[in-house]
C-alpha cells in the first residue's frame, strides 16, 4: 500500500468522517482515497475552492463533533496558516497532513523535503503551540495519522502529520489492526465554562449541537468565549494556557526511539533520514554511535537528548537547510552538526558514513 493511502486508512480507522481539501501534489492520493471512501463510511468529502476554505471547512466540521482533516503540501500549507492560528486560538481538534515537497513557493512538486518543520510550529502569527508527528514508513503513516486524531482531541489543538513525498509515495506492507483506539475530547462538564482550562489547561468540549451554547472566537476571549480584547491579563491568561496545555504535556505526547544510550556520537532524526541512519547502524554495528529518532517533533522532547549522557557530538541529517537542528542546539552544550540535504533525494548511507567519519 502507498503511504498516502495508508494515511487515509489511518484516518478512517480513527473515525475521521470529514475531509475538506484542495488536491495538491504530492498529497493528492490522500484526497482521492478519502473521496472514494468517506461517502461509503457515512462521512463527507468536500473538494473546496482553495486551501483557505479547506482548513476553514475542517474547523467548522470539527465543531460539530466530527473528526475532521485535510491534507496538503507546500503552497497549500502556506495558505492554511491564518486559519491554523484560528484553530489554535479556538482550541479546535483537527488534523492537518502535510506531504512536504521542495520549496519555497511552488518549488519541486514531485520531490521530497522537510522544509516546513518550523512553519508547522510557528507559521501562524502570535504565540501558540501545536503537535507534529513525523512518520518514516508506510506503516507509520497509518499509525501516526490515527494517533494524530487522538492527540488533537485530547489536547484540543490542531495536530500535524508532517510527512513528505518519499513516505507519501512509497509502497510497503502495512498491517491494519482490527480496531484503533479512538478516544474523544473530554465533554464539557455541567457548570464548567467552555474555555476554562482546569488542572491540565484543556477545556471540556461542547461541540455545536451538543445542547450547550458556545461562543467561538478568534479574538482574545474569556473563559465563556466572549471577546475581551483589551485586558492584558485576559490575553496573558488565555495565550499562556494555550501554550502550556501542550508544552507541559510534552512527556506524555513524546514518542521516540533511542538506540545505544552510551554512544558518543548521536544521530538525531525524524522522518525518512532516520531510515538511512538505521541502515548505516545495521551495516556497521558500533555502540559508540547512537540514534535518537523522533516520531513527535513538536512539542520538542528536549529530555530525550539526555538519554545520551556520554554524547560528545550530535549529528542531524534533515531534508532542509537545517531547521530542527536549531531546536537541538538550544538544549545541549555539545556541538550539534547539521547535515542538510535539499533537492528532493534522501541522504544515502554513504553520505552519512562520510559525515560520521568527518565529525566523530
Amino acid at each position, binding site marked *: 500500500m502507498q503511504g498516502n493511502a495508508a494515511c487515509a486508512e489511518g484516518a478512517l480507522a480513527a473515525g475521521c468522517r470529514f475531509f475538506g481539501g484542495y488536491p495538491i*501534489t*504530492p498529497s493528492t492520493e490522500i484526497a482521492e482515497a478519502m473521496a472514494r471512501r468517506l461517502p461509503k463510511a457515512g462521512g463527507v468529502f468536500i473538494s473546496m475552492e482553495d486551501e483557505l476554505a479547506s482548513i476553514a471547512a475542517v474547523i467548522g466540521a470539527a465543531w460539530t463533533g466530527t473528526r475532521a482533516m485535510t491534507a496538503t503540501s507546500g503552497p497549500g500549507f502556506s495558505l492554511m496558516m491564518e486559519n491554523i492560528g484560528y484553530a489554535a486560538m479556538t482550541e479546535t481538534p483537527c488534523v492537518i497532513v502535510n506531504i512536504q515537497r521542495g520549496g519555497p513557493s511552488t518549488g519541486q512538486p*514531485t520531490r521530497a523535503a522537510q522544509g516546513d518543520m518550523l512553519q508547522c510550529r510557528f507559521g501562524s502569527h502570535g504565540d501558540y503551540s501545536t503537535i507534529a508527528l513525523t512518520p518514516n514508513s508506510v506503516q507509520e503513516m497509518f499509525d501516526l495519522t490515527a494517533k494524530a486524531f487522538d492527540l488533537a482531541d485530547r489536547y484540543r489543538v490542531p495536530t500535524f502529520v508532517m510527512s513528505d*513525498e*518519499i513516505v507519501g*509515495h*512509497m*509502497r*510497503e*506492507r502495512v498491517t491494519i489492526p482490527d480496531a484503533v483506539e479512538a478516544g474523544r475530547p473530554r465533554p464539557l462538564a455541567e457548570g464548567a465554562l467552555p474555555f476554562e482550562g482546569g488542572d491540565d489547561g484543556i477545556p471540556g468540549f461542547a461541540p455545536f449541537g451538543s445542547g450547550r451554547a458556545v461562543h467561538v472566537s478568534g479574538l482574545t476571549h474569556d473563559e465563556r468565549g466572549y471577546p475581551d480584547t483589551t485586558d492584558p491579563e485576559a490575553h496573558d491568561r488565555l495565550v499562556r494556557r494555550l501554550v502550556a496545555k501542550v508544552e507541559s504535556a510534552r512527556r506524555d505526547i513524546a514518542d521516540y526511539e533511542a538506540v545505544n544510550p552510551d554512544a558518543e556520537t548521536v544521530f538525531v532524526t525524524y522522518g*525518512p533520514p532516520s*531510515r*538511512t541512519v*538505521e*541502515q548505516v547502524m*545495521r551495516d556497521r554495528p558500533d555502540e559508540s554511535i547512537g540514534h535518537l529518532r523522533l516520531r513527535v517533533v513538536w512539542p520538542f522532547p528536549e529530555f530525550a537528548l539526555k538519554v545520551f549522557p556520554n554524547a560528545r557530538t550530535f549529528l542531524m541529517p534533515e531534508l532542509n537547510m537545517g531547521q530542527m537542528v536549531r531546536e537541538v542546539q538550544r538544549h545541549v552544550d555539545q556541538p550539534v552538526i547539521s547535515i542538510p540535504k535539499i533537492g528532493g*533525494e*534522501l541522504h*544515502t*548511507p554513504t553520505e552519512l558514513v562520510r559525515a560520521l567519519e568527518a565529525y566523530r
Partner: protein
Amino acid sequence: MRHEIRFSGYGGQGVLLSAVILGRAAALYDDKYAVQTQVYGPEARGGASMGQVVIDDEPILYPEVTEPDIFVIMSQQGFEKYGIRAGKDAVMLLDADLVRSRPDCRYYEIPATSEAKGTLGREIVANIVMIGALVTATGVVSREAIERAVLDSVPKGTEELNVKALKRGFELGERA
C-alpha cells in the same frame, strides 16, 4: 539478501505497475519485505518512466535504490536514462524489439512486446510477459506469488489473458 530491481520503459507500457506487482508479490505472498518507489514527474505517456523495488528477507531500512542488481528495460530511452550505468554484476532483461543498445553486464533479450502482440494478441500485456521472464530468470520471487499479485492488480475480465502472458514470460525467462 537485498535485491534492488529497476524497471524502465516509456510511459503507458505499465512499467510502474510492474514494479508495484513485483513488490506486492514479495511483501504479501512470499513473506519477504519490499519497498516500491518511483520517479514522479511529467513522464505520464511517451517519456522514460521508472519504477523500482527493494526486496529483502529482513526489514528494509534504507528504502531507496542506489545500485540495482536487476534491470528490466523496455525502451531505448529508458535504457539511456536508467539502464546505461548498470554495474558489471547486474542482470538486465531487455525487450529486444524496443531496445537497440546492449549493456556491459549480463543481459537477456526477451521479445516481450512481439510475443504480446503476436502470440497473445494484445500488446498491452508486454509488461506482464516481462515480469514472468524476470521471475524465472532471476528467482527474485516465486511463481505462485507473482501470479497472485498479477491477479490482484489487473482489471476484471482480463485475468485469463494476463495469466497466459505471465506463463509465456515464465517460458521465455527459463530459456534465457
